[in-house]
Protein backbone atom coordinates (compact mmCIF):
# COMPACT_ATOMS: atom_id res chain seq x y z
CA UNK A 1 0.00 0.00 0.00
CA UNK A 2 2.71 2.44 1.05
CA UNK A 3 4.74 1.41 -1.93
CA UNK A 4 1.85 2.18 -4.24
CA UNK A 5 1.27 5.66 -2.78
CA UNK A 6 4.93 6.40 -3.15
CA UNK A 7 4.78 5.18 -6.70
CA UNK A 8 1.76 7.35 -7.39
CA UNK A 9 3.49 10.49 -6.09
CA UNK A 10 6.55 9.54 -8.06
CA UNK A 11 4.59 9.26 -11.25
CA UNK A 12 2.33 12.24 -10.62
CA UNK A 13 3.46 14.30 -13.62
CA UNK A 14 3.62 11.32 -15.94
CA UNK A 15 0.13 10.28 -14.88
CA UNK A 16 -1.15 13.80 -15.36
CA UNK A 17 0.12 13.88 -18.92
CA UNK A 18 -1.32 10.47 -19.71
CA UNK A 19 -4.62 11.52 -18.20
CA UNK A 20 -4.78 14.70 -20.27
CA UNK A 21 -3.93 12.79 -23.44
CA UNK A 22 -6.56 10.22 -22.58
CA UNK A 23 -9.12 12.96 -22.17
CA UNK A 24 -8.10 14.58 -25.45
CA UNK A 25 -8.25 11.31 -27.37
CA UNK A 26 -12.00 11.17 -26.79
CA UNK A 27 -12.65 14.37 -28.71
CA UNK A 28 -9.75 14.73 -31.09
CA UNK A 29 -8.43 12.69 -34.01
CA UNK A 30 -5.32 10.60 -33.52
CA UNK A 31 -2.85 12.93 -35.10
CA UNK A 32 -4.03 15.77 -32.86
CA UNK A 33 -3.33 13.64 -29.80
CA UNK A 34 0.23 12.95 -30.98
CA UNK A 35 0.59 16.64 -31.63
CA UNK A 36 -0.83 17.46 -28.20
CA UNK A 37 1.67 15.10 -26.58
CA UNK A 38 4.49 17.06 -28.19
CA UNK A 39 2.90 20.38 -27.31
CA UNK A 40 2.41 19.46 -23.65
CA UNK A 41 6.05 18.47 -23.20
CA UNK A 42 7.37 21.53 -25.00
CA UNK A 43 5.04 23.92 -23.21
CA UNK A 44 6.13 22.49 -19.87
CA UNK A 45 9.78 22.95 -20.82
CA UNK A 46 9.19 26.42 -22.26
CA UNK A 47 7.57 27.49 -19.00
CA UNK A 48 9.97 25.62 -16.75
CA UNK A 49 13.07 27.24 -18.24
CA UNK A 50 12.15 30.89 -17.68
CA UNK A 51 10.51 30.22 -14.31
CA UNK A 52 13.60 28.39 -13.08
CA UNK A 53 15.75 31.22 -14.39
CA UNK A 54 13.66 33.85 -12.61
CA UNK A 55 13.83 32.12 -9.27
CA UNK A 56 17.51 31.29 -9.70
CA UNK A 57 18.21 35.01 -9.81
CA UNK A 58 16.29 35.43 -6.59
CA UNK A 59 18.06 32.47 -4.97
CA UNK A 60 21.41 33.81 -6.06
CA UNK A 61 20.76 37.28 -4.73
CA UNK A 62 19.49 35.86 -1.45
CA UNK A 63 22.46 33.57 -0.91
CA UNK A 64 25.02 36.12 -1.97
CA UNK A 65 23.34 38.58 0.34
CA UNK A 66 23.59 36.22 3.28
CA UNK A 67 27.22 35.51 2.47
CA UNK A 68 27.88 39.26 2.53
CA UNK A 69 25.86 39.80 5.71
CA UNK A 70 22.86 41.40 4.06
CA UNK A 71 19.29 40.36 3.53
CA UNK A 72 18.78 39.84 -0.18
CA UNK A 73 15.71 41.25 -1.88
CA UNK A 74 12.89 41.14 0.66
CA UNK A 75 10.56 43.95 -0.29
CA UNK A 76 8.44 42.61 -3.14
CA UNK A 77 6.21 39.98 -1.67
CA UNK A 78 7.00 37.71 1.25
CA UNK A 79 10.77 37.02 1.30
CA UNK A 80 11.00 38.90 -1.98
CA UNK A 81 9.22 36.09 -3.78
CA UNK A 82 7.69 38.44 -6.34
CA UNK A 83 10.99 40.18 -7.03
CA UNK A 84 11.67 38.22 -10.26
CA UNK A 85 8.30 39.32 -11.63
CA UNK A 86 9.05 42.93 -10.78
CA UNK A 87 12.40 42.54 -12.52
CA UNK A 88 10.67 41.08 -15.54
CA UNK A 89 8.28 44.01 -15.76
CA UNK A 90 11.21 46.38 -15.45
CA UNK A 91 13.05 44.61 -18.25
CA UNK A 92 10.00 44.70 -20.50
CA UNK A 93 9.39 48.40 -20.03
CA UNK A 94 12.99 49.46 -20.47
CA UNK A 95 14.08 51.32 -23.56
CA UNK A 96 15.72 49.17 -26.17
CA UNK A 97 18.88 50.89 -27.36
CA UNK A 98 20.66 49.80 -30.51
CA UNK A 99 24.00 51.46 -31.27
CA UNK A 100 24.01 53.59 -34.41
CA UNK A 101 26.77 51.64 -36.13
CA UNK A 102 25.55 48.24 -35.05
CA UNK A 103 24.68 45.49 -37.45
CA UNK A 104 20.97 45.78 -36.72
CA UNK A 105 19.79 42.33 -37.83
CA UNK A 106 22.55 40.33 -36.18
CA UNK A 107 22.27 42.50 -33.10
CA UNK A 108 18.60 41.58 -32.88
CA UNK A 109 19.15 37.91 -33.69
CA UNK A 110 21.87 37.19 -31.15
CA UNK A 111 19.77 37.26 -27.95
CA UNK A 112 17.01 35.29 -29.65
CA UNK A 113 19.35 32.62 -30.93
CA UNK A 114 21.13 32.21 -27.60
CA UNK A 115 17.96 31.09 -25.87
CA UNK A 116 17.36 28.29 -28.41
CA UNK A 117 20.21 25.94 -27.41
CA UNK A 118 19.63 26.80 -23.76
CA UNK A 119 16.05 25.58 -24.08
CA UNK A 120 16.87 22.70 -26.41
CA UNK A 121 19.16 20.99 -23.93
CA UNK A 122 16.21 20.67 -21.54
CA UNK A 123 14.95 17.94 -23.88
CA UNK A 124 17.37 15.30 -22.65
CA UNK A 125 17.50 16.20 -18.98
CA UNK A 126 15.88 13.38 -17.00
CA UNK A 127 13.76 15.23 -14.48
CA UNK A 128 12.52 12.03 -12.91
CA UNK A 129 11.65 8.45 -13.58
CA UNK A 130 10.15 8.37 -17.07
CA UNK A 131 10.28 12.16 -17.14
CA UNK A 132 12.78 12.72 -19.95
CA UNK A 133 11.10 14.76 -22.66
CA UNK A 134 12.86 12.90 -25.48
CA UNK A 135 14.74 9.74 -24.60
CA UNK A 136 17.41 10.10 -27.27
CA UNK A 137 19.89 7.27 -27.37
CA UNK A 138 22.62 9.81 -27.99
CA UNK A 139 21.30 12.12 -25.25
CA UNK A 140 24.64 13.08 -23.77
CA UNK A 141 26.24 13.74 -27.13
CA UNK A 142 23.22 15.82 -28.08
CA UNK A 143 23.63 17.82 -24.89
CA UNK A 144 27.31 18.52 -25.54
CA UNK A 145 26.70 19.34 -29.20
CA UNK A 146 23.82 21.71 -28.60
CA UNK A 147 25.47 23.49 -25.72
CA UNK A 148 28.56 24.04 -27.87
CA UNK A 149 26.45 26.16 -30.23
CA UNK A 150 26.12 28.78 -27.47
CA UNK A 151 29.41 30.30 -28.60
CA UNK A 152 27.89 31.37 -31.89
CA UNK A 153 25.21 33.81 -30.64
CA UNK A 154 27.75 35.27 -28.23
CA UNK A 155 29.98 35.97 -31.20
CA UNK A 156 27.05 37.45 -33.06
CA UNK A 157 26.15 39.75 -30.21
CA UNK A 158 29.68 40.87 -29.59
CA UNK A 159 30.46 41.49 -33.24
CA UNK A 160 27.20 43.20 -34.10
CA UNK A 161 27.47 45.67 -31.24
CA UNK A 162 30.49 47.43 -32.79
CA UNK A 163 31.93 48.03 -29.40
CA UNK A 164 35.44 47.22 -28.34
CA UNK A 165 34.36 45.92 -24.96
CA UNK A 166 31.79 43.68 -26.58
CA UNK A 167 34.33 42.36 -29.03
CA UNK A 168 36.91 41.69 -26.34
CA UNK A 169 34.29 39.99 -24.21
CA UNK A 170 33.15 37.89 -27.13
CA UNK A 171 36.70 36.80 -27.92
CA UNK A 172 37.31 35.91 -24.31
CA UNK A 173 34.05 33.97 -24.12
CA UNK A 174 34.87 31.99 -27.22
CA UNK A 175 38.38 31.20 -26.05
CA UNK A 176 37.15 30.18 -22.63
CA UNK A 177 34.19 28.12 -23.77
CA UNK A 178 36.14 26.22 -26.39
CA UNK A 179 38.95 25.51 -23.95
CA UNK A 180 36.67 24.27 -21.20
CA UNK A 181 34.49 22.24 -23.52
CA UNK A 182 37.32 19.78 -24.05
CA UNK A 183 37.95 18.74 -20.42
CA UNK A 184 34.18 18.80 -19.89
CA UNK A 185 33.59 16.33 -22.70
CA UNK A 186 36.46 14.16 -21.56
CA UNK A 187 35.23 14.21 -17.98
CA UNK A 188 31.95 12.74 -19.20
CA UNK A 189 33.68 9.80 -20.90
CA UNK A 190 34.12 7.66 -17.71
CA UNK A 191 30.38 7.80 -17.04
CA UNK A 192 29.72 6.72 -20.63
CA UNK A 193 32.29 3.94 -20.29
CA UNK A 194 30.74 2.55 -17.15
CA UNK A 195 27.12 2.75 -18.27
CA UNK A 196 27.96 1.81 -21.88
CA UNK A 197 25.38 4.23 -23.14
CA UNK A 198 25.00 7.80 -24.31
CA UNK A 199 21.39 8.02 -23.22
CA UNK A 200 20.92 10.10 -20.08
CA UNK A 201 18.18 7.80 -18.91
CA UNK A 202 20.34 4.69 -19.17
CA UNK A 203 23.18 6.42 -17.37
CA UNK A 204 20.84 7.09 -14.46
CA UNK A 205 19.63 3.50 -14.51
CA UNK A 206 23.23 2.29 -14.43
CA UNK A 207 23.55 3.88 -10.98
CA UNK A 208 20.86 1.79 -9.32
CA UNK A 209 22.07 -0.10 -6.28
CA UNK A 210 21.37 -0.69 -2.61
CA UNK A 211 19.02 2.03 -1.42
CA UNK A 212 19.52 3.64 -4.85
CA UNK A 213 22.83 4.97 -3.59
CA UNK A 214 25.12 3.34 -6.12
CA UNK A 215 26.08 6.71 -7.56
CA UNK A 216 29.12 7.21 -9.72
CA UNK A 217 30.49 9.86 -7.39
CA UNK A 218 31.25 7.20 -4.78
CA UNK A 219 34.09 5.84 -6.92
CA UNK A 220 37.53 7.41 -7.35
CA UNK A 221 37.07 8.10 -11.05
CA UNK A 222 33.56 9.37 -10.35
CA UNK A 223 34.64 12.00 -7.89
CA UNK A 224 37.46 13.23 -10.09
CA UNK A 225 35.16 13.30 -13.11
CA UNK A 226 32.50 15.10 -11.14
CA UNK A 227 34.85 17.79 -9.87
CA UNK A 228 36.33 18.38 -13.31
CA UNK A 229 32.90 18.40 -14.92
CA UNK A 230 31.53 20.79 -12.33
CA UNK A 231 34.43 23.23 -12.66
CA UNK A 232 34.11 23.14 -16.44
CA UNK A 233 30.36 23.65 -16.16
CA UNK A 234 30.99 26.74 -14.03
CA UNK A 235 33.33 28.00 -16.71
CA UNK A 236 30.91 27.10 -19.51
CA UNK A 237 28.15 29.30 -18.17
CA UNK A 238 30.60 32.13 -17.49
CA UNK A 239 29.96 32.25 -13.80
CA UNK A 240 32.45 33.55 -11.28
CA UNK A 241 35.32 32.83 -10.75
CA UNK A 242 35.38 32.14 -14.50
CA UNK A 243 33.48 35.28 -15.43
CA UNK A 244 36.22 36.92 -17.47
CA UNK A 245 33.94 37.37 -20.49
CA UNK A 246 31.74 39.74 -18.55
CA UNK A 247 34.25 41.07 -16.07
CA UNK A 248 32.57 44.27 -14.97
CA UNK A 249 35.72 45.94 -13.79
CA UNK A 250 37.50 45.55 -17.12
CA UNK A 251 34.94 45.07 -19.86
CA UNK A 252 31.80 46.87 -18.63
CA UNK A 253 29.65 43.80 -19.28
CA UNK A 254 31.53 41.89 -21.95
CA UNK A 255 29.56 40.73 -24.95
CA UNK A 256 26.25 42.19 -23.76
CA UNK A 257 27.55 45.69 -23.07
CA UNK A 258 25.36 47.19 -25.78
CA UNK A 259 22.21 45.32 -24.88
CA UNK A 260 19.40 46.65 -22.79
CA UNK A 261 15.87 45.76 -21.82
CA UNK A 262 14.45 42.47 -22.97
CA UNK A 263 17.42 41.60 -25.17
CA UNK A 264 19.70 41.78 -22.17
CA UNK A 265 17.19 39.74 -20.21
CA UNK A 266 17.35 37.03 -22.86
CA UNK A 267 21.13 36.78 -22.52
CA UNK A 268 20.70 36.61 -18.80
CA UNK A 269 18.00 34.00 -19.13
CA UNK A 270 20.14 31.79 -21.36
CA UNK A 271 22.97 32.00 -18.87
CA UNK A 272 20.82 30.91 -15.97
CA UNK A 273 19.07 28.16 -17.89
CA UNK A 274 22.50 26.86 -18.90
CA UNK A 275 23.47 26.89 -15.25
CA UNK A 276 20.45 24.82 -14.42
CA UNK A 277 20.86 22.30 -17.21
CA UNK A 278 24.59 21.88 -16.62
CA UNK A 279 23.98 21.26 -12.93
CA UNK A 280 21.17 18.89 -13.86
CA UNK A 281 23.45 16.95 -16.19
CA UNK A 282 26.19 16.87 -13.55
CA UNK A 283 23.66 15.41 -11.11
CA UNK A 284 22.52 12.92 -13.76
CA UNK A 285 25.98 11.74 -14.64
CA UNK A 286 27.63 11.47 -11.27
CA UNK A 287 25.07 11.96 -8.52
CA UNK A 288 22.65 9.31 -9.64
CA UNK A 289 20.15 11.63 -11.33
CA UNK A 290 16.70 10.96 -9.94
CA UNK A 291 17.88 7.94 -7.96
CA UNK A 292 17.47 8.16 -4.24
CA UNK A 293 15.71 6.47 -1.37
CA UNK A 294 12.27 7.32 0.07
CA UNK A 295 11.50 10.57 -1.78
CA UNK A 296 9.87 10.84 -5.22
CA UNK A 297 12.32 10.80 -8.10
CA UNK A 298 11.68 14.32 -9.40
CA UNK A 299 12.24 15.72 -5.91
CA UNK A 300 15.60 13.96 -5.77
CA UNK A 301 16.57 15.36 -9.14
CA UNK A 302 15.63 18.94 -8.32
CA UNK A 303 17.19 18.65 -4.88
CA UNK A 304 20.54 17.53 -6.25
CA UNK A 305 20.47 20.11 -9.00
CA UNK A 306 19.71 22.94 -6.64
CA UNK A 307 22.42 21.85 -4.24
CA UNK A 308 24.88 22.07 -7.14
CA UNK A 309 23.54 25.47 -8.14
CA UNK A 310 23.94 26.65 -4.56
CA UNK A 311 27.57 25.50 -4.69
CA UNK A 312 28.04 27.58 -7.85
CA UNK A 313 26.56 30.58 -6.06
CA UNK A 314 28.81 29.82 -3.13
CA UNK A 315 31.78 29.93 -5.54
CA UNK A 316 30.60 33.30 -6.70
CA UNK A 317 30.42 34.59 -3.17
CA UNK A 318 33.91 33.35 -2.39
CA UNK A 319 36.38 33.58 -5.22
CA UNK A 320 37.90 36.52 -7.04
CA UNK A 321 38.16 36.37 -10.80
CA UNK A 322 40.82 34.30 -12.57
CA UNK A 323 43.61 35.94 -14.48
CA UNK A 324 43.43 35.16 -18.21
CA UNK A 325 46.61 33.11 -18.41
CA UNK A 326 45.69 31.23 -15.24
CA UNK A 327 42.29 30.46 -16.69
CA UNK A 328 43.72 28.96 -19.86
CA UNK A 329 46.51 27.21 -18.02
CA UNK A 330 44.05 25.64 -15.61
CA UNK A 331 42.01 24.15 -18.44
CA UNK A 332 44.84 22.96 -20.66
CA UNK A 333 47.59 22.10 -18.22
CA UNK A 334 45.64 20.78 -15.28
CA UNK A 335 42.10 19.65 -16.11
CA UNK A 336 42.86 18.11 -19.49
CA UNK A 337 45.66 15.74 -18.33
CA UNK A 338 43.62 14.93 -15.24
CA UNK A 339 40.66 13.82 -17.34
CA UNK A 340 42.91 11.64 -19.46
CA UNK A 341 44.29 10.00 -16.33
CA UNK A 342 40.73 9.63 -15.16
CA UNK A 343 39.73 7.71 -18.29
CA UNK A 344 42.63 5.37 -17.62
CA UNK A 345 41.43 4.96 -14.05
CA UNK A 346 37.97 3.98 -15.23
CA UNK A 347 39.42 1.25 -17.38
CA UNK A 348 41.44 0.09 -14.40
CA UNK A 349 38.32 0.06 -12.25
CA UNK A 350 36.48 -2.01 -14.83
CA UNK A 351 39.08 -4.76 -15.00
CA UNK A 352 40.20 -5.14 -11.39
CA UNK A 353 38.38 -6.29 -8.31
CA UNK A 354 36.92 -3.89 -5.81
CA UNK A 355 39.58 -3.43 -3.12
CA UNK A 356 42.49 -3.69 -5.49
CA UNK A 357 40.84 -1.10 -7.75
CA UNK A 358 40.57 1.38 -4.89
CA UNK A 359 44.22 0.88 -4.04
CA UNK A 360 45.44 1.30 -7.60
CA UNK A 361 43.22 4.23 -8.39
CA UNK A 362 44.25 6.15 -5.31
CA UNK A 363 47.88 5.42 -6.10
CA UNK A 364 47.59 6.51 -9.73
CA UNK A 365 45.53 9.55 -8.80
CA UNK A 366 47.92 10.58 -6.08
CA UNK A 367 50.96 10.31 -8.28
CA UNK A 368 49.37 12.07 -11.24
CA UNK A 369 48.00 14.84 -9.05
CA UNK A 370 51.39 15.32 -7.46
CA UNK A 371 53.07 15.53 -10.88
CA UNK A 372 50.42 17.90 -12.22
CA UNK A 373 50.70 20.18 -9.22
CA UNK A 374 54.47 20.21 -9.53
CA UNK A 375 54.27 21.00 -13.23
CA UNK A 376 51.65 23.66 -12.72
CA UNK A 377 53.45 25.54 -10.02
CA UNK A 378 52.88 29.21 -10.59
CA UNK A 379 55.88 31.28 -11.34
CA UNK A 380 56.73 33.33 -8.30
CA UNK A 381 59.28 36.02 -9.01
CA UNK A 382 62.11 36.41 -6.56
CA UNK A 383 61.55 38.93 -3.83
CA UNK A 384 63.14 42.19 -4.72
CA UNK A 385 65.75 43.59 -2.42
CA UNK A 386 65.46 47.30 -1.95
CA UNK A 387 68.88 48.63 -1.17
CA UNK A 388 67.78 51.90 0.33
CA UNK A 389 65.37 50.41 2.84
CA UNK A 390 66.77 50.82 6.37
Amino acid at each position, binding site marked *: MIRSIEFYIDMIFVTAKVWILDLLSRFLPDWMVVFASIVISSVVILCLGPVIMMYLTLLERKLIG*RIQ*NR*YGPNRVGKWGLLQPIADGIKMFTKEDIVPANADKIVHLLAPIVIVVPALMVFLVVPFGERMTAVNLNIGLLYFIAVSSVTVLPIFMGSWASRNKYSLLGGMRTAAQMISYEIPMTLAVVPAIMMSQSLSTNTIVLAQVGDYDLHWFIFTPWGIVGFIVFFLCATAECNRPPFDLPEAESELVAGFHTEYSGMKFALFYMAEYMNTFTLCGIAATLFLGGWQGPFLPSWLWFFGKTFVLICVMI*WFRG*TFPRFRVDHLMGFAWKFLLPLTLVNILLTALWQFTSDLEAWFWSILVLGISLWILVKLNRTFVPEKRKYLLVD
Partner: protein
Amino acid sequence: MTVFGWGVFKGMLVTLKNFATSYFRKPDEGGIFTVQYPEEREKTIENFRNFPFLVYDETPEKIRCVACGICERECPPKCIHIEMETDTAGKPARRPAVFDIDYGLCMNCGMCEEVCPFDSIFMDHAFEVTAVPISTNLNKTVLDQKKTKVSAERAEGLVRHKEKLLKSNEYFREIRPALASAIDQKRKAAEEKKRAIPPLRHNASDGPVLGRESTGGQAQPSATQEPK
Protein backbone atom coordinates in the same frame (compact mmCIF):
# COMPACT_ATOMS: atom_id res chain seq x y z
CA MET B 1 51.57 22.15 5.57
CA THR B 2 50.17 23.40 2.33
CA VAL B 3 48.17 21.06 0.19
CA PHE B 4 47.29 22.06 -3.34
CA GLY B 5 43.86 23.68 -3.28
CA TRP B 6 43.71 24.03 0.49
CA GLY B 7 43.37 27.79 0.30
CA VAL B 8 40.29 27.35 -1.87
CA PHE B 9 38.60 25.30 0.81
CA LYS B 10 39.62 27.71 3.52
CA GLY B 11 38.09 30.57 1.57
CA MET B 12 34.91 28.64 1.02
CA LEU B 13 34.68 27.83 4.71
CA VAL B 14 34.85 31.51 5.55
CA THR B 15 31.91 32.35 3.31
CA LEU B 16 29.98 29.34 4.53
CA LYS B 17 30.47 30.44 8.11
CA ASN B 18 29.37 33.93 7.22
CA PHE B 19 26.29 32.56 5.49
CA ALA B 20 25.31 30.36 8.41
CA THR B 21 25.97 32.90 11.15
CA SER B 22 23.96 35.56 9.34
CA TYR B 23 20.87 33.67 10.47
CA PHE B 24 21.42 33.69 14.20
CA ARG B 25 24.13 36.16 15.13
CA LYS B 26 23.27 39.57 16.48
CA PRO B 27 24.32 42.62 14.47
CA ASP B 28 27.18 43.57 16.78
CA GLU B 29 28.50 39.99 16.81
CA GLY B 30 28.98 39.91 13.09
CA GLY B 31 25.45 39.15 11.96
CA ILE B 32 23.30 41.13 9.58
CA PHE B 33 23.35 44.77 10.62
CA THR B 34 20.90 46.09 8.09
CA VAL B 35 18.15 48.21 9.64
CA GLN B 36 14.91 47.68 7.73
CA TYR B 37 14.27 51.38 7.59
CA PRO B 38 10.57 52.17 7.34
CA GLU B 39 9.65 49.40 9.77
CA GLU B 40 12.68 49.51 12.02
CA ARG B 41 14.62 52.58 12.88
CA GLU B 42 17.85 53.27 14.57
CA LYS B 43 17.34 54.99 17.92
CA THR B 44 18.02 58.65 17.31
CA ILE B 45 20.60 59.92 19.71
CA GLU B 46 19.66 62.98 21.71
CA ASN B 47 22.14 65.27 20.07
CA PHE B 48 20.89 64.53 16.59
CA ARG B 49 19.91 67.85 15.06
CA ASN B 50 18.08 68.42 11.84
CA PHE B 51 15.73 71.26 10.95
CA PRO B 52 14.72 73.99 13.41
CA PHE B 53 11.29 74.22 15.07
CA LEU B 54 9.61 76.63 17.46
CA VAL B 55 8.70 75.75 21.03
CA TYR B 56 5.49 76.88 22.69
CA ASP B 57 4.67 76.35 26.32
CA GLU B 58 1.17 75.18 27.15
CA THR B 59 -0.86 76.20 24.15
CA PRO B 60 0.26 77.29 20.72
CA GLU B 61 -0.76 80.83 21.67
CA LYS B 62 1.87 80.91 24.40
CA ILE B 63 4.71 80.99 21.97
CA ARG B 64 8.16 81.71 23.34
CA CYS B 65 9.35 83.55 20.29
CA VAL B 66 9.13 87.34 20.49
CA ALA B 67 9.99 87.94 16.87
CA CYS B 68 13.21 89.69 17.80
CA GLY B 69 14.73 88.63 14.52
CA ILE B 70 18.14 87.63 15.80
CA CYS B 71 17.95 84.23 14.19
CA GLU B 72 16.82 85.82 10.96
CA ARG B 73 19.91 87.98 10.96
CA GLU B 74 22.29 85.27 12.03
CA CYS B 75 21.03 82.56 9.71
CA PRO B 76 23.88 81.98 7.20
CA PRO B 77 21.74 80.90 4.24
CA LYS B 78 19.00 83.38 5.18
CA CYS B 79 16.26 80.84 5.26
CA ILE B 80 14.22 82.42 8.10
CA HIS B 81 11.65 85.07 7.48
CA ILE B 82 9.93 86.79 10.43
CA GLU B 83 7.28 89.48 10.58
CA MET B 84 6.20 90.83 13.94
CA GLU B 85 2.55 90.96 14.82
CA THR B 86 1.03 94.36 15.46
CA ASP B 87 -2.08 95.00 17.46
CA THR B 88 -4.95 97.16 16.23
CA ALA B 89 -3.18 100.35 17.31
CA GLY B 90 -0.20 99.47 15.19
CA LYS B 91 1.94 98.75 18.22
CA PRO B 92 4.31 95.78 17.87
CA ALA B 93 2.91 92.84 19.85
CA ARG B 94 6.16 90.92 20.38
CA ARG B 95 4.82 87.86 18.68
CA PRO B 96 5.62 86.65 15.23
CA ALA B 97 2.81 87.10 12.74
CA VAL B 98 4.77 85.25 10.09
CA PHE B 99 7.54 82.83 10.83
CA ASP B 100 8.70 80.93 7.77
CA ILE B 101 11.67 78.64 7.44
CA ASP B 102 12.62 77.36 4.03
CA TYR B 103 13.79 73.82 4.69
CA GLY B 104 15.04 73.74 1.15
CA LEU B 105 17.56 76.42 2.01
CA CYS B 106 18.29 75.47 5.59
CA MET B 107 21.68 73.86 5.97
CA ASN B 108 21.06 72.47 9.46
CA CYS B 109 23.86 74.47 11.07
CA GLY B 110 21.97 75.15 14.29
CA MET B 111 23.07 78.77 14.44
CA CYS B 112 19.50 79.89 15.20
CA GLU B 113 19.40 77.65 18.25
CA GLU B 114 22.71 79.05 19.46
CA VAL B 115 21.76 82.68 19.17
CA CYS B 116 18.15 82.61 20.35
CA PRO B 117 18.00 84.49 23.71
CA PHE B 118 14.45 83.29 24.42
CA ASP B 119 15.06 79.52 24.13
CA SER B 120 12.41 79.39 21.53
CA ILE B 121 13.98 77.84 18.44
CA PHE B 122 15.59 74.40 18.55
CA MET B 123 16.77 71.79 16.17
CA ASP B 124 14.34 68.96 15.57
CA HIS B 125 14.79 65.20 15.25
CA ALA B 126 12.36 64.84 12.38
CA PHE B 127 14.21 64.12 9.15
CA GLU B 128 11.55 62.72 6.85
CA VAL B 129 10.49 66.13 5.64
CA THR B 130 10.25 65.26 1.98
CA ALA B 131 7.80 62.49 2.67
CA VAL B 132 5.08 64.96 3.59
CA PRO B 133 2.82 65.78 0.65
CA ILE B 134 3.21 69.31 -0.60
CA SER B 135 -0.39 70.33 -0.14
CA THR B 136 -0.29 69.70 3.62
CA ASN B 137 2.51 72.20 4.00
CA LEU B 138 0.49 74.97 2.56
CA ASN B 139 -2.23 76.76 4.33
CA LYS B 140 -5.49 77.08 2.58
CA THR B 141 -5.03 80.53 1.15
CA VAL B 142 -1.70 79.76 -0.38
CA LEU B 143 -3.09 76.63 -1.85
CA ASP B 144 -5.97 78.55 -3.40
CA GLN B 145 -3.71 81.17 -4.77
CA LYS B 146 -1.31 78.77 -6.36
CA LYS B 147 -3.70 76.13 -7.51
CA THR B 148 -2.73 76.70 -11.12
CA LYS B 149 0.98 77.12 -10.62
CA VAL B 150 2.34 73.70 -9.88
CA SER B 151 5.95 74.74 -10.03
CA ALA B 152 5.36 77.53 -7.58
CA GLU B 153 3.65 75.05 -5.30
CA ARG B 154 6.67 72.81 -5.48
CA ALA B 155 8.92 75.69 -4.56
CA GLU B 156 6.63 76.37 -1.62
CA GLY B 157 6.72 72.74 -0.64
CA LEU B 158 9.64 72.89 1.72
CA VAL B 159 8.76 76.27 3.20
CA ARG B 160 7.43 75.64 6.67
CA HIS B 161 5.05 78.20 8.08
CA LYS B 162 4.52 79.07 11.71
CA GLU B 163 1.64 76.65 12.23
CA LYS B 164 3.76 73.78 11.08
CA LEU B 165 6.87 74.85 12.94
CA LEU B 166 5.23 75.16 16.33
CA LYS B 167 5.77 72.20 18.58
CA SER B 168 5.00 71.80 22.26
CA ASN B 169 7.48 71.84 25.08
CA GLU B 170 6.45 68.27 25.86
CA TYR B 171 7.65 67.23 22.46
CA PHE B 172 10.89 69.04 23.07
CA ARG B 173 11.31 67.27 26.38
CA GLU B 174 10.67 64.01 24.67
CA ILE B 175 13.27 64.35 21.94
CA ARG B 176 16.02 66.14 23.86
CA PRO B 177 15.33 65.54 27.56
CA ALA B 178 18.61 66.76 29.01
CA LEU B 179 18.62 70.11 27.23
CA ALA B 180 14.89 70.62 27.75
CA SER B 181 15.04 70.05 31.49
CA ALA B 182 18.04 72.36 31.81
CA ILE B 183 16.18 75.08 29.99
CA ASP B 184 13.01 74.47 31.98
CA GLN B 185 14.94 74.84 35.21
CA LYS B 186 16.56 78.01 33.98
CA ARG B 187 13.24 79.49 32.96
CA LYS B 188 11.68 78.53 36.26
CA ALA B 189 14.53 80.14 38.17
CA ALA B 190 14.20 83.28 36.12
CA GLU B 191 10.48 83.42 36.76
CA GLU B 192 10.89 82.98 40.50
CA LYS B 193 13.49 85.70 40.52
CA LYS B 194 11.10 87.93 38.69
CA ARG B 195 8.32 87.22 41.21
CA ALA B 196 10.68 87.87 44.12
CA ILE B 197 11.55 91.35 42.84
CA PRO B 198 8.23 93.08 42.15
CA PRO B 199 8.11 94.76 38.81
CA LEU B 200 8.66 98.48 38.79
CA ARG B 201 6.33 99.15 35.94
CA HIS B 202 3.47 96.76 35.68
CA ASN B 203 2.12 96.66 32.22
CA ALA B 204 -0.73 94.29 33.09
CA SER B 205 0.19 91.76 30.55
CA ASP B 206 -0.57 88.30 31.72
CA GLY B 207 2.11 86.17 30.18
CA PRO B 208 5.63 86.15 31.48
CA VAL B 209 6.85 85.77 27.96
CA LEU B 210 5.68 89.01 26.52
CA GLY B 211 6.48 91.29 29.43
CA ARG B 212 9.51 93.52 29.11
CA GLU B 213 10.49 92.49 32.63
CA SER B 214 10.63 88.87 31.76
CA THR B 215 12.77 89.81 28.85
CA GLY B 216 15.10 91.46 31.25
CA GLY B 217 15.37 88.24 33.13
CA GLN B 218 16.35 86.30 30.13
CA ALA B 219 18.14 88.74 27.99
CA GLN B 220 21.53 87.35 28.74
CA PRO B 221 22.73 85.02 26.05
CA SER B 222 21.25 81.71 26.98
CA ALA B 223 23.81 79.23 28.00
CA THR B 224 22.53 76.35 25.95
CA GLN B 225 24.93 73.82 27.20
CA GLU B 226 24.52 70.78 25.06
CA PRO B 227 24.15 67.64 27.11
CA LYS B 228 26.91 65.20 26.56
